[in-house]
C-alpha cells in the first residue's frame, strides 16, 4: 500500500508531470542513451535537456554516468514500479466522478418519480 504522503512519490510524479520528461523516460525504455540523443528529438538544447534529466535524477528515475565527454543516462525502474501502485489512486480519481454521477442519477430517479406522482 502506498501512503498518500510520500515525498519520494511526490518527486516521481512531479518528474513525470512534464511532457519532455515523459518523452525522455520513453526514450530510455529502449536502453541507455547519451544526453545529445535525448535532446535532439525534443528539439532542445543540451542544457535544457540536462535540466530535465536532473529532475529525473532527483526523483531517482534516471541514473547518469559520465564517460569521457558523454553523459550516459539509463532508467531506474524501481521508483516507476512504486508509481504504478498509484494506478489505483488514479482509478479512484475517475471513480470520484462516477460517484458524483451516481448521486446525480439518484436525483434524476427521484425527479422522475415525483413527476409521475403529480400526473
Amino acid at each position, binding site marked *: 500500500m502506498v501512503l498518500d504522503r510520500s515525498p519520494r512519490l511526490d518527486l516521481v510524479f512531479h518528474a513525470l508531470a512534464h511532457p519532455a520528461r515523459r518523452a525522455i523516460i520513453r526514450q530510455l525504455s529502449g536502453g541507455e542513451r547519451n544526453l545529445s540523443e535525448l535532446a535532439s528529438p525534443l528539439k532542445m538544447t543540451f542544457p535544457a535537456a540536462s535540466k530535465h534529466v536532473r529532475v529525473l535524477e532527483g526523483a531517482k528515475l534516471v541514473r547518469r554516468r559520465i564517460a569521457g565527454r558523454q553523459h550516459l543516462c539509463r532508467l531506474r525502474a524501481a521508483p516507476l514500479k512504486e508509481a504504478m501502485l498509484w494506478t489505483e489512486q488514479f*482509478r479512484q480519481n475517475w471513480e470520484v466522478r462516477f460517484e458524483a454521477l451516481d448521486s446525480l442519477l439518484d436525483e434524476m430517479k427521484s425527479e422522475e418519480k415525483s413527476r409521475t406522482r403529480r400526473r
Partner: protein
Amino acid sequence: MTPKKGLQISTPTDTTIVLTRTFHAPCRLVWEAMFTPDRMRRWMLPPPGWTMTRCECEARAGGALRLAWKSEEADPAMTLQGVFTEVVLHERIVHTETMALGSGQTIGSLLEMHEFAEQDGTTTMRITQTYDSKADRDGALASGMDQGMEAGYMQLDAVLAQPA
C-alpha cells in the same frame, strides 16, 4: 446479485483504454446524465482550481462536443472538441475528441465509444478510447497524473517491461 459497481479499467490493446462502470439507474437516465450539458456539469468534476466554462454537447450524428475549462492561470486552460460520428440512442455513441491547451497546442486526440447495456434497471456503461498510437495512449495515461482529466490513471507497463 448486485453487479459489481466499481470502475474497472483495462488496456486490451496497445492503443486502447476501456473503462467499465455499472450504475443503478435505467439506461436512458445514464445517457441523459452523460450527454446533456446541464447534467454533465454536475459530474464532470474538474481538478482543484479549475472551472468548466463551456459545455456543449449535441448527441446526434454530426453533432459537436465542445468543452472548455479555465484555471487560476489561464482561460481557457484546456479545451476538448469533437464530433459525434455514430449515435444509436441509449445503446451506442461514438465521438472524436481532441484536447488542446489554452494556447491551442494539441495534447492528443482519440476516438471514444460509449456502449450501454441495461438489465433489471441497472446499466453497464463501457467506454472504449482508441488512440492513434501506443505512444499517444501511454501519453494520455501519463498526463492524467498531473491533470486527472484525461485517463486519470497511468500505465507504465511498456516502460517497465523493458530491462532497466
